């Protein structure tokens, strides 16, 4: 491994980290602005022009708040909870292809931290261990509300992981690869997977809402029943980490949705742009296209949050186990039949 590659990858990892943090920061502002817009208000407008410095002010406020600790016998685990939530939220971005490639300094730079063969499984794995941050934090708080919130969040995430995995299997049968880079490359032009697998996209979208604990699935922090849910006992920046992890998760899951189903960095006429304007300019537009898609999904998350009320717990479980999972299995069967249609017709003698 040469040192240029290490420098190149380090720069990419740092930039991705910075962008994730920035997007998570400004998602908090966007959430308040969208809420204000949907409710016919103005929203935060005091810090900076049009409230543009509001996230900085919020962050400063969280740092300056008093650090309160409950009387818990598990002080170490109490600290580990938010750290784990933040770590798993940031780990996912490692396998995402942010663009095709740049041609700089006489070498091709691939805009991805690592291109492993099992990228999609890695995503599912990181999502599944994301529950630990909430569970451990909620339990270590030594509070009944926190515990019930944590258990709710965990059971919800486990239930929806099943449907999510099954919906991805239908997609995998079509793409034939687990590498996100190859999946992106296959969707060149307007060959987006959402046109071939609309049901899979729909199931994945609902599960992504559930996995990020967003409304209508935010039973984990249902104020009327559970005070603040799993982060009732948290204050100051530890609380900030939990909230921040939620927004980072939202950004990452929007990215995954865009990469898997909406063509990633591809946009109509990309090959034409590569021929006429060169690789670099075409890819700058590609990254722009990816971020437009991501912002679209983030807006969808907020739009849904301020439109649809929260589910009841039994409705949540009913939707996950009795509707989404059978639907995903039917989707897998249909996909299989369509892929093998030639063989089936030959077997039936048409």
């Amino acid at each position, binding site marked *: 491994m040469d040192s240029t590659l290490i420098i190149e990858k380090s720069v990419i990892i740092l930039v991705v980290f910075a962008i994730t943090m920035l997007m998570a920061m400004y998602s908090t502002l966007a959430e308040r602005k969208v809420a204000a817009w949907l409710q016919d208000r103005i929203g935060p407008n005091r810090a900076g022009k049009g409230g543009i410095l509001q996230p900085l002010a919020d962050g400063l406020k969280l740092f300056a708040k008093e650090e309160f600790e409950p009387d818990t016998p598990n002080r170490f685990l109490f600290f580990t909870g938010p750290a784990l939530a933040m770590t798993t939220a940031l780990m996912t971005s490692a396998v995402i292809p942010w663009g095709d490639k740049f041609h700089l300094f006489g070498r091709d730079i691939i805009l991805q931290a690592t291109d492993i*063969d*099992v990228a999609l*499984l*890695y995503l599912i794995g990181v999502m*599944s261990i994301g529950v630990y941050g909430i569970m451990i934090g909620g339990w270590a708080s030594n509070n009944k509300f926190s515990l019930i919130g944590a*258990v709710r969040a*965990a059971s919800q995430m*486990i239930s929806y*992981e099943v449907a999510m995995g099954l919906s991805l299997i239908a997609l995998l049968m079509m793409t034939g690869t687990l590498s996100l880079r190859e999946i992106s490359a296959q969707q060149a032009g307007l060959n987006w997977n959402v046109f071939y697998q609309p049901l899979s996209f729909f199931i994945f979208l609902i599960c992504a809402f559930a996995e990020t604990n967003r409304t209508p699935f935010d039973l984990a922090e249902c104020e009327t029943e559970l005070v603040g849910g799993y982060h009732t006992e948290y204050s100051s920046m530890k609380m900030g980490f939990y909230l921040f992890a939620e927004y980072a998760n939202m950004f990452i899951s929007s990215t995954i949705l865009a990469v898997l189903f909406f063509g990633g960095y591809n946009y109509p006429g990309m090959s034409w742009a590569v021929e006429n304007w060169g690789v670099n300019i075409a890819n700058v537009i590609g990254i722009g296209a990816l971020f437009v898609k991501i912002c679209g999904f983030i807006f969808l998350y907020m739009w849904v949050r301020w439109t649809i009320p929260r589910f009841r717990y039994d409705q949540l479980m009913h939707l996950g186990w009795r509707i989404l999972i059978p639907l995903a299995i039917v989707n897998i069967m249909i996909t299989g039949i369509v892929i093998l249609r030639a063989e089936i017709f030959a077997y039936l003698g048409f």
Partner: protein
Amino acid sequence: MINIPDFANASAVQIIFCVLAFITLLTAFLTIYSRNPIHSAIYLVICFFSIAGHYFLLNAQFLAIVHIIVYSGAIMILFLFTIMLMNLNEKKEVHRPRITRLGAIVSFVLISLILIAIFINSKPIVGEYTSTGEDYQSIKVLGKVLLNEYMVPFEFASVLLLVAMIGSVLLSKKEKLEK
């Protein structure tokens, strides 16, 4: 006999292996040793992660990730779940009669005897593997091997899992009906 490793000239992989093995053994021991069941479960999770690290060292990416998803991501979370809801305390620990302790010691000594015998008589077979030239890191190759050469055991395993799943559903349903 058991070889003592040469720490001075160890390669990077060997050092990583030693660190991982240390974490695995330590957390496995702490799983049994710690009194709080939740701490036990968390140590077990760390143990599973280090085992996944061993798979990565053997270039088995697929196995490592699936290990994390299945054991750390699903099974251990359900474990934690049950322990948290049951709210086990140290005080509730059942007092064990003396005969049980004696039995435990005897069985431990017997197991150690067998393990020592195995370690002394075993011959390392690392040198005897032959390279087939296939890249088993690739999921395509792995899938083809599983569904061509090992089709029957693979399908039997899936049937076994299905039966276990239906069985557990049936058991939990029956209890409810009787109540």
